[in-house]
């Protein structure tokens, strides 16, 4: 196991290197795309009651927009090389700092949502596959359809309305933590972990309560693809020779389903979970908006609407990097689930 782990690491490193050209392409493409978009950010940001031509010119200079596009690109790339993603006009902070502060919020939310989704989707898919065409199967299908057809911001607002506004069960849907709770020292950036590390159970509970509604509204939306994939691959796996053999030798039903069928069926689920995770991270902008969640997606949307170039570029780069990493993790998980698969 140990030697194979070492080999896996080497291969993983090689994989990361080979994705650098793709990242570079994303970098240049986003840069050009932002420049082609209509709208002059300098004019937008100079929209104070008295901002005239002089102020617009000054902002343009500050944003580096007074140079030609190729020149800007060269400056941009050399800045990136030095780990500088530029400065956001919106928040006035360096983009890197903004992203570093906001990424844990998005990750924490997305991980939680994905976990909730998996916890519901895998059993649902399995149950549906065991009795295809039955009432249960149709029930699962209906539930999935409902989850997918209700947009996240609608389910988010509904959840807020019921659990916060009507029942008063949930805390107020603003941000990651009640404003009156003092924060723990930031170690991982994940509040639910930092509170535990600080030994503050009350704070941990407050952070978790805050997390539930947004995570559930996101999870509802992605249960469908996960459950459908689980069902499909379970069906294939249940109908295969090894399951028939396992059954015929009289192994328990539980052992057949869980150990033999599910373990084989889980590979596509991992793949889809990886993809779902990457999409959720960027696409949860509506949930972040509804719950005032200080994540990266709502940050990028605000930046896009105000043509604030640096944060948008930084966000796309971050997403591309994460996508590469998630794919890598998926491949490694593959190797663990099925030792015949090795990454290369």
């Amino acid at each position: 196991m140990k030697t194979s782990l070492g080999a896996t690491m080497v291969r993983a490193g090689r994989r990361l290197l080979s994705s650098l050209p793709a990242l570079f392409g994303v970098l240049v493409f986003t840069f050009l795309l932002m420049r082609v978009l209509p709208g002059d950010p300098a004019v937008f940001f100079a929209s104070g009651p008295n901002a005239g031509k002089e102020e617009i010119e000054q902002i343009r200079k500050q944003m580096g927009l007074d140079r030609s596009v190729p020149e800007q690109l060269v400056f941009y790339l050399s800045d990136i090389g030095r780990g500088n993603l530029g400065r956001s006009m919106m928040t006035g902070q360096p983009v890197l700092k903004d992203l570093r502060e906001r990424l844990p919020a998005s990750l924490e939310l997305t991980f939680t949502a994905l976990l909730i989704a998996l916890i519901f989707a895998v059993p649902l898919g399995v149950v549906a596959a065991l009795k295809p065409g039955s009432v249960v199967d149709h029930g699962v299908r209906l539930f999935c359809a409902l989850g997918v057809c209700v947009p996240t911001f609608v389910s988010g607002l509904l959840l807020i309305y019921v659990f916060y506004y009507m029942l008063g069960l949930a805390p107020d849907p603003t941000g990651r933590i009640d404003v009156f709770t003092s924060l723990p020292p930031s170690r991982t950036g994940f509040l639910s972990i930092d509170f535990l590390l600080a030994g503050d159970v009350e704070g941990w509970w407050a952070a978790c309560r805050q997390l539930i509604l947004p995570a559930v509204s996101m999870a509802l939306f992605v249960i469908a693809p996960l459950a459908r994939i689980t069902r499909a691959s379970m069906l294939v796996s249940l109908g295969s020779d090894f399951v028939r053999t396992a059954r015929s030798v009289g192994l328990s039903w539980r052992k057949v389903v869980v150990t033999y069928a599910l373990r084989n069926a889980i590979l596509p689920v991992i793949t889809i979970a990886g993809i779902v995770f990457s999409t959720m991270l960027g696409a949860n902008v509506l949930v972040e908006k509804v719950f005032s969640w200080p994540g990266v997606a709502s940050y990028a949307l605000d930046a896009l609407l105000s043509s604030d170039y640096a944060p948008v570029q930084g966000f796309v780069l971050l997403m591309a990097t994460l996508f590469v990493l998630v794919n890598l993790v998926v491949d490694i998980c593959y190797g663990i689930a099925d030792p015949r698969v090795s990454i290369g």
Partner: protein
Amino acid sequence: MRFVSFRPAASVLATTALLLIATAPSQAQTRAETLRYVTGSAVNTLDPNIPGSTRESFALSMSTYDRLVAFGRKQLNGKWVFDLDTITGELAESYDVSPDGLKLTFRLRKDAKFQDGSPVTADDVKWSLDRCVTAPILGKAQLLTGSLTSADQFKVIDPLTIEVTLPKPDKLALPNLATVYPMIINSKLAKEHATTDDPWATAWLKEHTAGSGAYVVETFKPGEQVILKRDEAWNRGTANKPAFFKRVIIQSVPEPATRANLVERGDADLVVDLQASDVQSLEAKGKLKVISTPQYNAITYVSMNNQIPPFDNVNVRRAIAYALPYDDMFKAAMFGRGAPLFGASWPDGKPLNGIYPFQQPVKLDFDKAREYLKAAGLPEGFSTTFSFNVGQSSTAEPMAALVKESLGKIGIKVDIQKLPDAQMSTQINEKKLPFYTEGIVAWLPSTDYFYRNFYTGNQRWNYSSINNPELAEIAQGARFEPDKAKYEEAGRKLNAMHFDLMPQIMLWQPNQDAVMAASVEGYTYEFHRQIDYRDVSRK
């Protein structure tokens, strides 16, 4: 990766189970002494002078910094609003204006201290005002409107006296010193953080405060929230007392429905930017205090570019002015919340007074509209586009639909164009939009200020791109007119010209709807259209 992903798993499992049992919300004890204000936008800088600063940043700076003087307040239809005509001392204990109007002398309070404990001196005032007119910051353009342009105009007489010299007796010099930008900075502290590239410490002041204001910034998370702590030594409030609230939390909540929920549930104390429909339903429920003040320094327009055909023809502009369904638009866009600027009656056909904005005698009248179209040589109508900002779509979208429908009846084909905010600003700046809706605000709402800024010159705020030498001359002349009667006469003339030329069509002054807990008192409509946290208290 494994560590990271599995801990939340455990926590989520536990919480999902516990959510069903545990319900008691943990309330901090300091709640009554804390003001929680929720807003759609965010504070993005601690120095409002930075280009790109938001309205929330303006409001924040009013409480963290003092200015030499401040606006008083007055009642308008039973509601408190800022009063442009009463200027009271803030850091200045008293001030004098010389008889010729060329010299303003400010005597500082002896007991005023910065938040680090050092006394406020005339040197700090001079440095701050110098910064405002010299550094490349927003204050420069603002102070220009009050003839404050150069550092030579500010002179330290003694440690507690400062003198401001004006080239001409400018009515707007003093009120300008009460606006957001000319805040008084602790110059010693700021200079410590100045660099050769940045002699006015703009970078440092963006993230730090060095003021003498009522509140100290405790935490500042750009784009999320700011927490303020009361400065106990500050005594420049009413009755020389510190501000009421011990803490102020300014939190960004982008979703308007959530803001409404928060204030209705009592979790937030105060909110100003709700959707009109939410305000109406909250008002109807009667649990909360709703104070609606027409923004008397703001106007919503339909603008026509007076240089682009066919809008360069005055009869086309008049035709449109008579073809807009004002009442329906006002109801659909604003739920009737605001002060209409249409449908006046001018008995002798002349403006009632010289105040701008004013109510114009226009109303929906298709016959008149058709006549004007015929007079313009376009009896069959024409095609055009009507644009608005995505950011304003909740009010502009229903309005645009009504404009399209109504103009269609006199043969004008309208294409609705919904533009992203940055794109819209760019096109307005380049004067490319023929027909659109926009809103404006003036901090110092005097008639000549409006006409000079919004109806003259080739700058962005001249939305209609009107170029009328006579109008420009009257507006410029009125600026330095000391005689009140003559000023009023100039205002009447300008208003009559506005109605005659119809460069753009004034629609209404939107309401500022402040919704607050029943216990919150003292709310005042401020020139920056945000809350002054020093105004409010709890019963």
